[in-house]
């Protein structure tokens, strides 16, 4: 299983803040997971329509598209940060 979290407008577009799901067959990277979520349903297609404005973290560290995702990981998707 992986634990997936969504923040800000990604959370709104996904219609959920988090979900647990089995790591999909053949998916091993952040980019792969984005592709899978995009194809899964309309919410995913809407949330990830513009992947260049989506940032990711794996196990609470910023991660790039080619970074690995493994069973047990916490993967988060969010827009560029705007704190301060």
């Amino acid at each position, binding site marked *: 299983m992986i634990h997936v979290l969504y923040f800000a407008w990604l959370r709104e577009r996904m219609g959920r803040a988090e979900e647990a799901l089995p790591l999909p067959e053949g998916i091993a990277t952040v980019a792969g997971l984005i592709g899978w979520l995009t194809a899964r349903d309309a919410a995913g297609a809407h949330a990830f329509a513009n992947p260049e404005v989506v940032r990711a973290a794996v196990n609470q560290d910023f991660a790039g598209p080619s970074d690995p995702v493994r069973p047990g990981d916490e993967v988060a998707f969010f827009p560029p940060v705007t*704190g301060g």
Partner: protein
Amino acid sequence: MATVRVQAEPFDAGAELALLLAGRTDVGGVGCFVGVVRNAAGGRPIRAMRLEHYPGMTDRALERIAAEAEARWDLQGCTVLHRHGRLLPGDLIVLVLAASPHRQAALDATGFLIDWLKTRAPFWKQEEFADGDAAWVEARQNDTAAAARWESETL
């Protein structure tokens, strides 16, 4: 020693300064940045600012940023506090303090801490307008440029 906190409650900047200086007389200066909720964005009045964050990752990110400042400058302590939740115009959002024997280190470390925090800590702002509309704040190119300044600088 860095003090890092993410909280919904208001903070008292004066009390935090006193805490940073408590029991020591070797500090030469403290740099300070306080972020405040403005009452308008792009000329449009704001009723409130909502701050969402990624619990867990936020603390790690702030601790990492504070450790980086302490590695780069001769600091005797620093404080990074960031609020989350719904804030009103005039409320304080963020506090950065950096203490050093020397003025320039204190000021530079303060600038670094707020610039890096803006691009590396997982917070997201949503503006709530007077008419009830709400919009997520978009990341600003000049924030990224301000943070990048510290990448190229040789210290």
